[in-house]
């Protein structure tokens, strides 16, 4: 039978003044926002805890630490209900379609390109998608569309990889990282001031940028990176935005009318959202930390008879000023392919972990790390190789690598044994190269679009044997001195 429920509409022509008292509005406003915040964070509580843990441990992907704050700053510019017609069913349908398509896409990409997905932290895109769906259902799809600048900002920042690569492009020091986050904070302030006059908006942005830069210079050397970033890209943008909003008379008057026309949502809708949040929490458990970084002898390179062949200073732009990336030559063996040992060393485990899934060697197609569960291998070892069966150009050198983490004294090392897949060649394995956005985004996307076959190719057993032999040598040389502890 005919339903008596008439969906409330708010035509442009009749955007009426608020009819409820400011207190009631505020109460309604805050309770809905509180539910929204709880659901947003609860669904991905473990992932968020991981991010916080990594950031406090010294990770350089600190943009994630302040991103929720910056999103909140930008969202403060959208306090007025949008004008136009609203429709509950459309909100749900759009949220469902976006959610199903988005989460399916993320799931498929994670399975198809696991290494690249971890590098890009594709899971975090799921957090954003969940928030978008949540806003669509709780506040209306009109809000979602209107807040496109916020989503664009969030998409650009949610994956730490572009941030880390940008920081690397500017030198990669901690100061650069902090200044980059300060610039993002200033951008957030600019976006938050969408209702303010252009002059006030630009002034606030410049004040934010200048004060954050000055603070970086003053306190950067006294605080940890996370502390500095929280101050310059968290506290400063919030303060500047609050001042900007409070000083703007127009915004002052409209603030009281905020959210007066929020769509009605039934308890059943809320229950469904809670169920989805719980489901997301269950399917996104905390990341199992691999038991890597076994403690080894500090002079294992020398004991293994390795000689330093080349160093790659570009690593300081990624892992920090104290980092080194050295290639050690492995003596050739007749009839066996050429091999080398590459070692990245730094005093900060978290910064090294930022690039756990980076691929430093050239490949014509996306390649994947595969875990190795073998007692003859170091703990946490992973294998990766290019596809020697695939057609490629004559200059390309196919390689096979095994990588793991060791700890020597106060330093952490990522050790990679790399072998040339061409057995009868004297050409050494390819040298590591700096990461680029082209290699980590555009090329894989094009490869995906070209619908290339998924086969990873076969590796010559001789190549594997060569790598195993080098690994055995290294493991034999790495025995720690008696009394040293193992594991981390």
């Amino acid at each position, binding site marked *: 039978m*005919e339903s008596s429920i008439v969906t409330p509409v708010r035509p442009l*022509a009749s955007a009426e003044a608020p009819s409820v008292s400011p207190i009631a509005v505020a109460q309604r406003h805050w309770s809905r926002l509180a539910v929204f915040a709880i659901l947003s964070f609860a669904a991905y509580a473990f992932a968020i805890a991981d991010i916080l843990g990594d950031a406090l441990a010294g990770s350089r992907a600190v943009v994630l630490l302040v991103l929720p704050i910056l999103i909140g700053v930008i969202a403060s510019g959208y306090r007025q209900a949008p004008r*136009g*017609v609203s429709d509950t069913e459309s909100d749900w349908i759009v949220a469902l379609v976006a959610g199903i398509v988005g989460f399916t896409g993320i799931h*498929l990409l994670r399975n198809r390109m696991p290494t690249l997905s971890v590098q890009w932290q594709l899971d975090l895109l799921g957090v954003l998608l969940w928030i978008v769906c949540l806003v669509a259902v709780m506040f209306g799809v009109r809000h979602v569309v209107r807040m496109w600048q916020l989503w664009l900002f969030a998409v650009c920042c949610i994956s730490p990889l572009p941030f880390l690569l940008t920081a690397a492009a500017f030198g990669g020091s901690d100061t650069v990282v902090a200044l980059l986050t300060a610039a993002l904070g200033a951008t957030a302030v600019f976006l938050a001031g969408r209702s303010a006059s252009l002059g006030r908006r630009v002034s606030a942005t410049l004040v934010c940028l200048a004060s954050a830069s000055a603070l970086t210079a003053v306190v950067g050397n006294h605080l940890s990176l996370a502390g500095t970033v929280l101050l310059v890209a968290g506290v400063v943008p919030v303060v500047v935005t609050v001042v900007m909003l409070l000083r703007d008379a127009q915004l002052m008057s409209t603030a009281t009318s905020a959210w007066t026309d929020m769509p009605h949502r039934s308890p059943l809708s809320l229950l469904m959202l809670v169920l989805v949040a719980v489901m997301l929490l269950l399917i996104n458990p905390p990341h199992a930390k691999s038991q890597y970084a076994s403690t080894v002898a500090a002079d294992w390179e020398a004991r293994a008879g390795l000689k330093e062949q080349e160093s790659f200073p570009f690593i300081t732009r990624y892992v920090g000023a104290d980092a080194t990336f050295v290639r050690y030559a492995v003596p050739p063996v007749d009839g066996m392919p050429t091999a080398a040992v590459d070692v990245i060393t730094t005093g900060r485990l978290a910064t090294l972990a930022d690039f756990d899934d980076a691929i430093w060697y050239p490949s014509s197609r996306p390649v994947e790390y595969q875990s190795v569960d073998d007692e003859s291998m170091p703990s946490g070892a992973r294998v990766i190789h290019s596809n020697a069966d695939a057609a490629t150009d004559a200059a390309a050198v196919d390689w096979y690598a095994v990588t793991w983490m060791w700890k020597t004294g106060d330093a952490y090392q990522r050790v990679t044994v790399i072998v040339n897949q061409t057995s009868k060649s004297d050409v050494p394995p390819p040298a590591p190269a700096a990461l680029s956005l082209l290699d980590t985004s555009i090329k894989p996307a094009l490869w*995906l679009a070209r619908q290339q076959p998924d086969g990873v190719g076969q590796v010559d057993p001789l190549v594997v044997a060569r790598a195993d032999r080098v690994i055995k040598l290294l493991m034999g040389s790495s025995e720690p001195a008696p009394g040293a502890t193992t594991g981390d």
Partner: protein
Amino acid sequence: MTETRQTVVLPKHLSASTILGRRVLFGLGCAAVLFVGIAFTLPHHIPPLITLLIAMLYLCSTIDRNYLVLRGLKSSALVHVSDEEAMMLTDEELPVYTVLLPVFDEPAIVSNLIKGVGRLDYPSDKLEILLLVEEDDIPTQTALLDADLKSLRIVLVPHSMPRTKPKACNYGMSLPDLEGELVTIYDAEDIPDPLQLRRAVAAFRRVSPEIGCLQARLAYFNERQNLLTRWFSLEYDQWFGVVLPAVDELRCVVPLGGTSNHMTTKVWREIGGWDEFNVTEDADLGVRLARNGYRTLILDSITLEEANSDVVNWIRQRSRWYKGYMQTMLVHLRSPVDLRDTIGVKATLRLINMTGGVPLTAAINLIFWFTMLVWVLGRPAFVAEVFPALTYYICLVLFIVGAPLSIFVGLVATQALGKPYLWWAALLAPLYWLLQSIAALKALYQLIFRPFFWEKTVHGLTHATASTETTGGN
């Protein structure tokens, strides 16, 4: 003496009131469960067969739609009545005309009436304008209190379910003292060509008695307001100016537009009036005209309407239309053999394609696009399984030929209709298809859970600057 209402009773089997009742839904649910069970039991046979069937039907549907557009562009079958011919009719020659104006929650009604229906060029003593206002619609009643509206009769429609436009119109037509020989219906915000009623009278005199209805063309006064209004306008210019004349030429069923359909009161009563439970009572009426042996011609006279400029409002409106199309299809397919015997196989198939086929293909679009995305990103084996070679090639043709062809036909239509400024809207049509898919999902949901709910379209969203001058006429 007590005057009695002239009620028209629609036979139950022609009404949407009893489709998809609880029993039917239960049956459909059981059938769906059974079907899914069989599909799981025979995963290598049933799902590929289904996709093949859908792909073939989709291909046929696409070919037919493009054929209709191209045929309509080649030869226009509009009924032209010149201004001179319309004005030649003397007052004595003109019949009494009933104009129905159903309104609900339209406080801006007075200004709309003055701009629109109030400008109709027809002798006031031969014009019965019935403003049908719901009994509990206080805002509209308040707006009408001080209005000086001549030749207009305000009719309060008693509250009852379903609260639909056809119910209000049927109530208006049941008034005992109506004298109209011809009847038409306008929406409150419509701006009809001032000579439209005269043109309709002249046309009815000229055409054969088998013509039961003249549908005036609908166009939009705010078509340049935004991308959505451009899409909307392009779509309906094609529909009324190109497709429907072609459909009539092929002796198939013409689904009527929501307003500006003119017919004799006698025919209207003969075919049973509007179905109060059908949310596109106009399309349904078109089918019943055909089933009673009447044809519908397109009158070359324009009624300007407000193109929907708001995406959410558009989805609401379109979902109602889609729901109504499906209701219409289901009602008339209750006895497919009867339908085929009455209107023929070709017209039956085309009717399905032009009513229920529209929302169903729009919903299927979403599934096909999603499947393509899944294939590109993940290449899961089940996609290869359900798209064997033949299905794959049909879908490939649809994707790389059908979709661009539809865009191209849209571009051709912009030129043919004399609206080259709509070219970029035609190019961006795939985005419009996405909106149509969302509306189709909403329609499918409502067809099951709220079948008779009238999703009210909000009017008055046009910016003042976006409106163009009323051109009227032909």
